[in-house]
């Protein structure tokens, strides 16, 4: 089923979606999502991040933590990457909570030169010297059987430092995406697969269907926490060629789908209309607005409208019929 067929044929789900945004209709457990105001990247929010981690029960004392940002290109005029300040604040929060090791790792999908990724000097200068930076494109992959059933791939080669970490924090940039509509903490996990096993781009995953591969990967590789950089996101022709979109918020949750759903709503999309988020809701909680226990700032305070390519306009909140 392609995206267009999905959108045409999902009237029942859209009905649920409409209800899902109605306060109080959700029965069952609630999943915490914290929104932290970060008006610009100069503000130190490491204490707020540490407080959110603690409130969410993310135990880091003595743990090996891997921060997985979206850090794939360096363009001064395009907010492509999770900002170094957000990564640095998060690393500082992990160290404050007693993490034994903190590393920042990334395997960009279209470019193999790590200087444009986590080995970029801008990140080195922002980070505590105790934090290591890992080029996950050129490292050993651990063969992990596919726990999903969508892509048809037998397994994934997941970067060894990801598998060795006790805690993996997916730290995407809040962006539109020219193949999937939005890219947030679930899509960000493509970057735990070393390019030497898949190539640039990671074509075997495209052959298997990008959305199918996201879903299987998220079932297979660990995400213990999501922290989305929405201080300045990217709208339009993301994930590389779009324009800056100021939002001024971080979105955090131990439930990555719940974080993505809240971020999508802030961006002006209905997560119930984003096919891979709906697919993920079959095994992850938090898609519906009513399933979220909102902490910190009210996300509606930051709600805006990210421009998107025409193909994805049907995913917008206001397009709901």
């Amino acid at each position: 089923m392609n995206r267009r067929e999905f959108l045409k044929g999902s009237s029942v789900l859209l009905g649920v979606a409409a209800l899902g945004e109605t306060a109080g209709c959700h029965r069952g457990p609630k999943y915490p999502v914290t929104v932290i105001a970060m008006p610009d990247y100069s503000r130190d929010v490491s204490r707020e991040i540490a407080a959110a981690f603690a409130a969410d029960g993310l135990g880091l004392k003595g743990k090996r933590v891997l921060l997985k940002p979206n850090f794939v290109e360096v363009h001064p005029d395009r907010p492509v990457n999770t900002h170094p300040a957000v990564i640095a604040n998060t690393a500082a929060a992990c160290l404050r909570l007693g993490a034994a090791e903190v590393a920042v790792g990334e395997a960009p999908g279209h470019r193999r030169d790590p200087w444009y990724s986590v080995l970029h000097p801008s990140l080195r200068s922002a980070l505590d010297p105790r934090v290591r930076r890992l080029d996950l494109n050129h490292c050993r992959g651990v063969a992990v059987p596919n726990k999903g059933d969508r892509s048809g791939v037998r397994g994934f080669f997941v970067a060894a430092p990801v598998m060795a970490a006790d805690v993996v924090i997916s730290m995407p940039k809040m962006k539109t995406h020219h193949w999937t509509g939005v890219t947030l903490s679930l899509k960000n996990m493509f970057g735990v697969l070393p390019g030497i096993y898949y190539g640039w781009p990671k074509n075997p995953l495209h052959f298997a269907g990008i959305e199918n591969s996201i879903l299987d990967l998220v079932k297979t590789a660990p995400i213990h926490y999501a922290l989305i950089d929405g201080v300045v996101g990217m709208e339009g022709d993301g994930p590389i060629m779009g324009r800056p979109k100021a939002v001024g918020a971080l979105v955090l949750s131990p439930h990555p789908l719940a974080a993505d759903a809240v971020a999508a709503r802030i961006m002006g999309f209905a997560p119930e209309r984003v096919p891979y988020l709906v697919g993920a809701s079959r095994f992850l909680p938090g898609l519906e607005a009513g399933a979220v226990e909102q902490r910190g700032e009210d996300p509606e305070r930051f709600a805006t409208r990210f421009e998107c390519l025409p193909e994805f306009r049907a995913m917008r909140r206001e397009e709901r019929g």
Partner: protein
Amino acid sequence: MGNSHKQQTDAATNTIVPLVGFIRADGGCPYYRGGEGFSEPTLLALLALHVAGVSKQETEPLLAWILAARNGDGSIGLSPEHRTQGTWLTAQLAVVLHHYGASAPLEQAVNWLLRTRSAAVAQDPNVAHDNRLIGWPWVRGTFGWAEPTAWVLIALNLLGLAEHPRAVEGRKLLLDRQIPAGGWNYGNREVRGRELLPFGDTTALALIALHGHVPEEAVSASLEFLKRTAEIVESPYDLVWAIIGVEIYGIDVSRAKDRLAAVIDAIPSDEANCIHLAMAVIALSGKKVFIP
């Protein structure tokens, strides 16, 4: 100029020292220090050691590691543990075997490359390139992309097979993927009507692969992009490729080489990548190991 040449020679010599430090006891080289041996860093280290005139006795463990890592069909994978991934590596293997004069495994590798094809897929209205053209994939059974296709063309050119029908089609693929404003991305020139941005490494590889086989005006915008890259880029990997690619077209890159020496020196030890150092040795040497 003479002083600059001496500085570059010194820099090449200085770069060999940390490169040699990557060689593990078993002869394999990791991408990063402390890692396990992989084919690509071992192959490019072999090429750099050859360029630097290191003795056969010293390169023997690396060559033995590589020959043992080969598959029965003449190809080579990522490492002895992951033998089926990495089509571009067999092209690098052919380049290395050519320079080391290992004719029997070379013939096997080339035959494997000529048998290996990228997948053709239905034309996608969201991309501008011709999906039917056949080149070489990163991973067997998938689509053809700029870097693996360029590596195989470089190998075929070195071996006098530039007019083989596969090479001719490979060149068509590269030209089809060239970004109109100049350069190559990973292999798409545009997505959904939006031209993509060129990369230094893929542009250099494509220009080397096409050198002498297409009219220079067909790649002039790309060469201009690479010249600019050589002048300004700070990335060690992009810079080594820009130097090699531009110099092959007969353009002076002395200033870029001077800059490269400083860039390499500035890399923290634990972030030094074996293939970057190996390529730096080749770039600083000025030896044209990628063209006949």
